[in-house]
């Protein structure tokens, strides 16, 4: 069993020791996520994107700050509000857009859509559509890292897995099963609850016990925990880094609540009857991107001109990504059966595939 440690409130400002270049990259990453999301909403309204679309605007500092605190080879996994994590991890926005457009060059060949951002090269194990169901999968990722280290390769990569979940996922059985197993197996996995206050229209206070102190969930499983303000990327990094280091060193799990806010509706069709305009405004006033830009300008010799150039550059990148994605072909019908099984037609040759392809023999 892990010993219970609750993070001290006052922490060293680790971020200020990082090169300026890194701190600027955080700003660029957050700007990229936001710009992509704004364009995604437009593309959705222009019917270029099908299905459901969950926008990450407001939560950028969470993905960027936590991913900065791990190594690029540490696995990450999340739910369906996944564009931000994919980009922060290094997915090219072209592939992200193409996926949403249902095109062959999407990260899942246009077969998955917005909720299914996968990027194996960047150790991003997906967006997942069933709330909470990624929690046990994260256990497997963490287990496999450990198994590789201890059994197969006898080295110490000491990878740490990050598993993101919404506050709504706290109410799912799969989350609790996963927390228990993480404790029992002592796996290096960090459950990051992005507490944006709502699961669709249900506020956390209506749906979750101990909403005022979510670290209590970790206490029940004997796990280290912390509650972090997620509207400031420097703070997210500073608080996450020692937790990650600790999990890496001691090969143990942790749970963190990161308090944030999604500025937009749950998905593209959300009347937002469950909250007030004033509340939304209050959070928008603490915008993590503006805060970080102001910090860089005040403390790190970043000029207004640098800022403008960065914004322009990001816009250009996203515009190019959209153009590229629109030019990418729609998958051919013969693509549909690929990847159902390892063998192209799987064990069911002769059942339905040839009629799909219009074979007169059926």
């Amino acid at each position, binding site marked *: 069993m892990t010993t219970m440690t609750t993070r001290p409130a006052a922490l060293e400002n680790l971020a200020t020791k990082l090169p300026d270049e890194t701190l600027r990259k955080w700003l660029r990453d957050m700007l990229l996520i936001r710009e992509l999301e704004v364009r995604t909403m437009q593309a959705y309204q222009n019917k270029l994107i*099908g*299905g*459901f679309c969950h926008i990450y605007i407001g939560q950028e500092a969470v993905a960027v700050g936590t991913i900065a605190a791990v190594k690029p080879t540490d696995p990450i996994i999340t739910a369906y509000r996944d564009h931000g994590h994919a980009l922060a991890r290094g997915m090219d926005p072209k592939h992200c857009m193409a996926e949403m*457009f*249902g*095109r062959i060059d999407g990260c899942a060949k*246009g*077969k*998955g*859509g*917005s*909720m*299914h951002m996968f990027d194996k090269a960047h150790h991003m194990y997906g967006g997942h*559509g*069933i*709330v*909470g*169901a990624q929690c046990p999968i994260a256990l497997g990722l963490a287990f496999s890292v450990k198994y590789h280290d201890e059994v197969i390769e006898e080295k110490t990569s000491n990878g740490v897995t990050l598993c993101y979940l919404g506050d*709504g*996922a706290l*109410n*799912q*059985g*799969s989350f609790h099963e996963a927390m228990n197993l993480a404790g029992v197996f002592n796996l290096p996995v960090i459950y990051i609850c992005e507490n944006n206050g709502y*699961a*669709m*229209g*249900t506020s956390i206070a*209506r*749906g*979750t016990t101990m909403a005022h102190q979510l670290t209590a969930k970790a206490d029940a499983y004997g796990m280290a925990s912390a509650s972090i303000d997620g509207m400031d990327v420097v703070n997210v990094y500073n608080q996450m880094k020692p937790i990650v280091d600790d999990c890496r060193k001691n090969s143990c799990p942790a749970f963190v609540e990161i308090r944030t806010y999604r500025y937009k509706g749950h998905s593209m069709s959300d*009347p937002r*009857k*469950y909250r007030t305009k004033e509340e939304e405004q209050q959070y928008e006033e603490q915008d993590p991107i503006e805060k970080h830009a102001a910090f860089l300008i005040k403390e790190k010799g970043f000029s207004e001109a640098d800022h403008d150039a960065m914004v322009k550059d990001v816009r250009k990148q996203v515009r190019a990504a959209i153009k590229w994605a629109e030019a990418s072909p*729609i*998958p051919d*019908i013969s693509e*549909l*059966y690929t990847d*159902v099984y390892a063998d192209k037609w*799987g064990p*069911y040759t002769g*059942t*339905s*595939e040839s009629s*799909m392809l219009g074979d007169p023999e059926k």
Partner: protein
Amino acid sequence: MANLTLVQAINLALIQEMERDDRIIILGEDIGVNGGVFRVTEGLHKRFGEKRVVDTPLAESGILGTAIGLAMAGLRPIPEIQFEGFLAPAYDQICTHAARMRSRTRGALTVPLTVRVPIGGGIHAPELHSDSPEAVYAHQPGIKVVMPSSPYDAKGLLISAIRDPDPVIFFEPKRLYRAFREEVPEDEYTIPLGKARVVAEGDEVTVISWGAPVVQCMTAIEASGKSIELIDLRTIYPIDTQTIVQSVRKTGRAVIVHEAPKNCGLGAEIASRIMEHCFLYLEAPIQRVTGFDMTMPYYKKELEYLPEAERIGKALAEVAAY
């Protein structure tokens, strides 16, 4: 009479049943204040209050488990699951408890609940939000499975489902929610479970379908210019074998149309029943026009996956000409 969409017909049925029977409680994720993902329960929270229209946390297994307990205690819960894909976390509760409680207690305890679940593709959604798992549940003895294909049927079938003494899964084809309107009586009426509807009479080929593809079948039949009999099952389990058999004995030819994958789809069961009862009447091999044996593809490809009118039309021509 009112000219209603399928959503409105269900909403009306819920209101009327809740007014008639105060044992009815509806519960689900965001069904109250927000009126549900598809706004099917719009207005009910205001009308009946939060004690009878209960917003639940995000926990399908918990929702179904709670509903089963309520039903065992004599109430008439109507849980909503947002999409058919999210029935998976609740599968355990449905199939290991709801379906078996009557048998397990030899009738001492029963579970008269109706689970409302949007089903099927055609709304540009990805997998888990576009699937057709009706056969999975039809395979489980102890529950009934219903799927309307029109506003009129939706109201009458839902009222029957709610009043039924056994657990019913009431699948609502999303694609038809707002696809068209139909005259729906304002007075209450019921349509018996387990009874199919002959939508169109004909003597050349029998087409058997249910849910959203019924509409595609109608288009295909009209375009074919042939005399074709269309049967809408309405209830998937128990299945109305008699209506099917009577029709196929008359036409000698059958085409079965469903959205779910072909392999182990309900079409296989129906074809088998036709073989058992109509073997000597058959003039052509039975054809199935179905989804394919794969995960439901994302929206750019969904119409190629779904049994659309054109594909149905081809099968009709082939079977008729055989």
